[in-house]
């Protein structure tokens, strides 16, 4: 079930878990599958586990693409 949402890590705990925030609700997330998780990172969470970090640069670039689309600019999507 890939209903994974990006949640923001607000705290790391000693046992390899963390607390993540989505819309003000806090969830315990197992971080054993994530390399070097840090507070402030956005994590894709699935079945109680972080499965990957959100790449902020890529996310921002994508958001800008959508904003340009909304503004009516002609934009391409392919990137090597």
């Amino acid at each position, binding site marked *: *079930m*890939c*209903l*994974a*949402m*990006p949640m923001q890590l607000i705290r790391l705990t000693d046992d390899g878990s963390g607390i993540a925030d989505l*819309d003000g609700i806090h969830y315990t997330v*197992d971080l*054993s*599958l*994530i*390399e070097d998780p840090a507070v402030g990172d*956005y994590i*894709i969470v*699935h*079945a*109680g*586990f972080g*499965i*990957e970090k*959100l*790449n*902020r640069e*890529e*996310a921002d670039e*994508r*958001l800008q*693409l*959508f*904003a340009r*689309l*909304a*503004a*009516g600019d002609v934009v391409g*999507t*392919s990137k090597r």
Partner: protein
Amino acid sequence: MKYIDGFRQADAARALGQRIAAGFTAPRRDREVAIMEVCGSHTMAIARYGIRDVLPAGVRLISGPGCPVCVTPPGYIDAAVELADRGLTIVTFGDMLHVPGSQTTLAECRSRGGRVEVGYSPSVALDLARRHADREVVFLGIGFETTLAPVIAVVDRAAREHIGNFSVLTAFKLVPPALAALRADPEVRVDAFLCPAHVSAIIGADAYRPFAGPGGVPCVIAGFEPLDILLGLEGILRQLADGRADVDNQYRRVVTAQGNRRAQELIARLLEPVDAPWRGLGLIPQSGMALRQRYAAYDAARRHGIVVTEGRSHRECRCGDVIKGKQFPADCPLFGKACTPDSAIGPCMVSSEGVCAAHYKYAGIGEASS
């Protein structure tokens, strides 16, 4: 910063939808082009956002076997019910509860006293085992690579802590072998794949290389926000128009070329590939994963001496054909009549990611394959 809102801008979606509809003529004139999406979440999102409506004439979007619940034979439910009948505690993801086995469902089993608990995470099952040492706990480990990783991380933890009353009834399936089987199936015609988002986060974009290139098809990885899907489809149409067949990772904010190495190493350490039966597709070689012998104590089938058989489906159930994109839900004689979300006969209707459930809920009854 909330990372969801920006991906759901209506204006951008509208602009993109218009661009797709206006800018692309059908890539081929002699026949329809079929784009297959193989992710249950894509199936749902496409239905929910009405994405089929923006595709130009001559392009068809078909759903593939993207729902792990749907491709698991009913015999798996039979095995889970049997374990519950023996007094074991079954912990499962919610959408397994109403999936029909040969005779019954886990929900029904629970209603007559079976210990069936719903958990959003395999960690819930392990916690239960820790807190109740007198109970044998079995987690129903069913899923593709995205789910495989968390489940196996929990097995690893159980092994390290020497938890003696926890095991997993595994039904892990791998996406790339299924794609290969679909490409090789003469009854299925696929001109491009819209590849899953979070399976790809685990396996990496490079995993689709064997399906692209000369003689291959475009493989575009997309997230499941509507804008992601629209851009992904546009990318596919562009490739088809240009005669290209490349792997295009459009979910780079989460998916890397190599994928999640930590998850892959864990998977390789605890599991080995096995042949696996897929509802509708038959036995696909090396398409499943089983626990290695040294983890046999955590494998419910070996631990509890239970064999998972094929089981029996309803005679008129067409889930098998729907799963491989050969038929649309409306082609099934049971769809919307005997088979509805409230009284599902096949897993495609019951699962929250099932094709039939998506069509029933969002597309209405009536969209047929012809």
